[in-house]
């Protein structure tokens, strides 16, 4: 149920945000995070954004995902 990949907010209407994950669009609720803004990367669980990622955190994830044995 957890989507551990960062989703970017591409549209914001009150507490509903349209997010883009690898190009796929979906609506989520942003009531559980403080001050959501257009362009923010968020962590999604059960249709809700539960955390806002800093740009540096998204970059860190990309680096970690490239890890190999």
């Amino acid at each position, binding site marked *: *149920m*957890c989507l*551990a990949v960062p989703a970017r907010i591409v549209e914001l209407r009150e507490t509903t945000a349209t997010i883009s994950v690898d190009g796929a669009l979906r609506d989520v609720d942003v009531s559980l995070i403080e001050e959501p803004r257009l362009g923010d990367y968020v962590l999604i669980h059960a*249709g809700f954004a*539960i955390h806002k990622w800093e740009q540096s955190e998204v970059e860190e994830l990309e680096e970690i995902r490239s890890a190999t044995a």
Partner: protein
Amino acid sequence: MKLPLQEIAGLAQRLTRPVQFMEVCGTHTMAAYRSGLHQLLPPNVRLLSGPGCPVCVTDPSYIDAAIELAGHPDIIVATFGDLLRVPGSDSSLEQERAAGANVRIVYSPSDALVLARECPSKKVVFLGVGFETTAPTVAWAISQAALDDRKNFFVLCAHKTMPQAMDALLHGQAVKIDGFICPGHVSVITGAQMYRFICERYRIPCVVTGFEPWDILSAIKMLLRQVVEGRAEVENEYSRSVSEAGNPVAQRLMAQVFEPCDVVWRGIGTIPGSGLRIRKEYARFDAAVALDVTFVEARVNPSCLCGTVMRGMATPFDCRLFGRACSPSHPIGPCMVSSEGVCAACFKYEKRAAA
């Protein structure tokens, strides 16, 4: 970036005895099996799976109660997909749905609320199952229902909190645990400080981590280093998502709608203070109260080892039904149904039938 396997091997050589670390998050369980991490570890370092799958730890009497509700013509049961195929005493929600019961899969508790708005002549009952990551989303739905004065939205609440279960496992001493890999997304909500009491009470190290193979191996490396150096602290490998204090908005909402209660964990028994029940102020949305639900002790297959597996005391291979009578297409216990269940993970990625 390289996986920290050499460091793990180096630290493992300095151990004076074998160690067992436990992960308590279904998504970690899945990720570990998917990437074959168990095979990458030195022989004196074992990774155990704990009670991290919310569907798996749900008492079967809850499934029976949900099935009973779905049998009423004026009720729609709304649920996350994971619960659909979990066997109750005689049936599952999926079987009931095939026989005509009104069971809908939703992706979010807010979808269940929308359903209630769209179907005013029906009572919509959302099945509230999950840990601290899911509970705030359900708290949000209940608080919105209160604002809307919604009369046909209910939650059958079985939410649970993870630190109390970790406490109970250590207290019970049935399995030796030398360190916890703490759940990633539960900790996004609770904050890493949540586990400090475990370190203090039991002298056991805790590391919060993410879901990539690199994250899990880094957590194992950090736990090993703590064991070797004789430390027992909370360390946070997942600081890109988890802060010390967690998500304040979600915490406030949870505290507003829920209060702690004692609750039964399948296979473990009653754990004091490990459940969340709906507060009196919101009792009109509590399906157990408003729809007068009774929970009757369920009958489960006595050969299913789910309960023992979830305490880390057995692996799916110890179950004589694994890969034979029990498989994802014909699940006997919840651990084989859920996408976060240990048996399902093991079947999907290790797929050897029991010897």
